[in-house]
């Protein structure tokens, strides 16, 4: 019987298979950041163990890094200690690190792919749930806990329980103005935040094939929000095109050998998935969340749902609580929801295409009075590219703040936070209570919706701007 993409990658990494034991899998790439690695390094130190494969390990600083005044000492002592600890550990164990101020620094899931370190058919792990991002290349990539981080550092392997496979097939063409973010938000709303539990999702179909690499990363990034172990997309010409010439992409004969191997990875025609979901791309519209989990989303053109309409008592209760926290009335059209802040960034939507999309909408416009907009590139490379293209000027001319690279307001571990009660349209991936700051209210949106929302001061799609074209008088 044929095998799926995920099964092929798994099989190619089995170091040891024994009756009654989980498979021991080899890990091709281990990404580290400052939050989940300190205890793992300390465990190595206590046991007197080295890092087995420093040549398959790379660290970057992202969660705690400030996005302003990056040349000044970090004010928050906890953030400072975490960053300093990572630097010390990297030096002591011989791990490559990209610290604040380094040209390769950035959000770990933006940095890996842009260096060309993430490639098809690899196993990629990181002590961070959004490691699923790397699945966009046809890699089996998943987040791990701190004791697993230590295990990988010491052995470059992980004993892993088997997974089930789910195909999410999206056929047809995405309508104008509908993005990868809308697609994945719609998928999560459809299968629920627990719908992917125990599964590795494979996104397939013509709509997925036509996505750029960066858009594919947006989709795979949020697999975790559906509860999945990982999300994957079969590598194809788009993947190879993206990788070619990147610093760590294979070269010469190695490139040919790699591409030949990568071409064999796609799911076989006679492979069987444990579960299948079909989505018609042409029916998708801009999508936003109204609640406090990523599954509580709806088309922008609809209204805040009425908890009464949920048949499941748990869901009804969750909706009631969400509306109370979000300060929303059932039945309010989502387009009438006014925001205080807009955040463009994160490992979901902090890449150059995302910034271009937002800038294209802001060009020649001003953001609404009273709205604060933060644009935070996912990495220093993204920032440099944006500056080269003049996007930073577009943002600042529109009244937005152009910041340094990092996770920033995606989780507010640094000073970039919402005040209690503030409402934000955010291109990040989690709208949990307090995620962007205590009492903050988050609506997950695409970069396009974020930009249009900033201009109108209420949730909006770019199409809404045509009629209200507020050109700036120079």
């Amino acid at each position, binding site marked *: 019987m044929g095998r799926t993409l995920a099964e092929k990658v798994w099989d190619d990494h089995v*170091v*040891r298979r024994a009756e009654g034991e989980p498979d*021991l899998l*080899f890990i*091709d*790439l281990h990404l580290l950041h400052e939050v989940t690695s*300190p*205890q793992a390094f*300390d*465990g190595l130190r*206590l*046991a007197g*163990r080295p890092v*087995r494969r*420093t*040549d*398959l*390990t*790379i660290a970057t600083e992202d969660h705690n890094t400030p996005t302003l005044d990056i040349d000044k000492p970090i004010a928050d002592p*906890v953030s400072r*200690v*975490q960053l300093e*600890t990572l630097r010390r550990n990297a030096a002591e164990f011989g791990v*490559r690190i990209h610290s604040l101020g380094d040209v390769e620094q950035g959000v770990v899931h933006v940095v890996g792919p842009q260096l*060309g*370190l993430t*490639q098809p058919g*690899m196993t990629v792990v990181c002590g961070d749930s959004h490691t699923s991002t790397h699945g966009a290349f046809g890699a089996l990539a998943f987040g791990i806990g*701190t*004791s697993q981080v*230590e*295990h990988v550092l*010491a*052995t*470059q*392997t992980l*004993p892993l329980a088997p997974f089930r496979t789910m195909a999410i097939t999206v056929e047809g063409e995405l309508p104008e103005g509908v993005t990868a973010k809308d697609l994945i938000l719609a998928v999560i709303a459809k299968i629920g935040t627990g719908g992917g539990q125990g599964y590795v999702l494979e996104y397939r179909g013509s709509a997925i094939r036509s996505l750029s690499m960066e858009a594919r990363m947006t989709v795979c990034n949020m697999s975790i929000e559906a509860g999945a172990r990982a999300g994957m997309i079969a590598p194809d010409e788009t993947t190879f095109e993206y990788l070619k010439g990147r*610093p*760590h*992409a*294979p070269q010469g004969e*190695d*490139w040919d*050998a*790699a591409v030949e*191997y990568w071409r064999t990875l796609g799911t076989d025609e006679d492979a069987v998935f444990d579960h299948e979901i079909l989505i018609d791309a042409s029916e998708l519209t801009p999508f936003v969340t109204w609640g406090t989990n990523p599954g509580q989303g709806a088309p922008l053109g609809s209204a805040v749902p009425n908890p009464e309409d949920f048949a499941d008592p748990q869901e009804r209760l969750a909706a009631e609580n969400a509306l109370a926290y979000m300060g929303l009335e059932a039945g309010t059209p989502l387009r009438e929801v006014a925001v205080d802040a807009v955040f463009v960034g994160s490992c979901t939507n902090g890449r150059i295409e995302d910034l271009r999309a937002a800038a294209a909408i802001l060009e020649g416009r001003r953001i609404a009075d009273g709205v604060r907009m933060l644009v935070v590139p996912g990495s220093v490379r993204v920032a440099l590219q944006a500056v080269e293209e003049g996007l930073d000027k577009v943002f600042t001319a529109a009244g937005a703040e152009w910041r340094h690279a990092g996770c920033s307001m995606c989780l507010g571990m640094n000073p970039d936070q919402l005040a209690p009660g503030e409402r934000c349209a955010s291109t990040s991936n989690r709208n949990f209570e307090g995620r962007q700051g205590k009492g903050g209210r988050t609506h997950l949106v695409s970069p396009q919706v974020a930009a249009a929302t900033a201009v109108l001061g209420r949730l909006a799609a770019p199409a809404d701007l045509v009629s209200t074209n507020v050109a700036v008088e120079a």
Partner: protein
Amino acid sequence: MEKFTTHTGRAVPLRRSNVDTDQIIPAHWLKKVTRSGFEGGLFEAWRKDESFILNRPERQGATVLVAGPEFGTGSSREHAVWALQNYGFHAVISSRFADIFRGNSLKNGLLTVVLPQETVERLWVLTESDPSAEITVDLENREVRAEGVTASFELDDNVRWRLLNGLDDISITLQNEADIAAYEATRPAFKPRTLPVS
């Protein structure tokens, strides 16, 4: 991880049930970046009270905690286990542990022993009246012994084997180091490396 075969030591009788992990180690200790040095946070709130049993001079150097039922409930923080170990405990006896806490403890080499509540009661009475009374936790024979008490306990064979040999997950994997090396030898040349930095 240290081997656990048999351990004998004085005890701290903790007559409280439902001791959750936030009481064992409060959340603000989670900001630490090491696996050691959590002893100061163990039962931090209770230790502010001078009469709390852990603070009494006759309990200093005790290594066996005899706790009430439902020990270790709440958040899954592994720090709770580290705090108990850093403080010097080798074993915790209770009639019921929270699952995640138990899993974490056995992974880290802290032996959690389940005994019937009436046996726990007898150990409490014994160690309360005589702070110098010793308790022996014998993993080889799966038995707890103290003056007037001999009680057998159950423990999964595999877990017992790991504790007896001092094997944590990493040591177990490293026993198959030859498999890892053999796999590494066959990895294709085109797979990327992070070093050296070009």
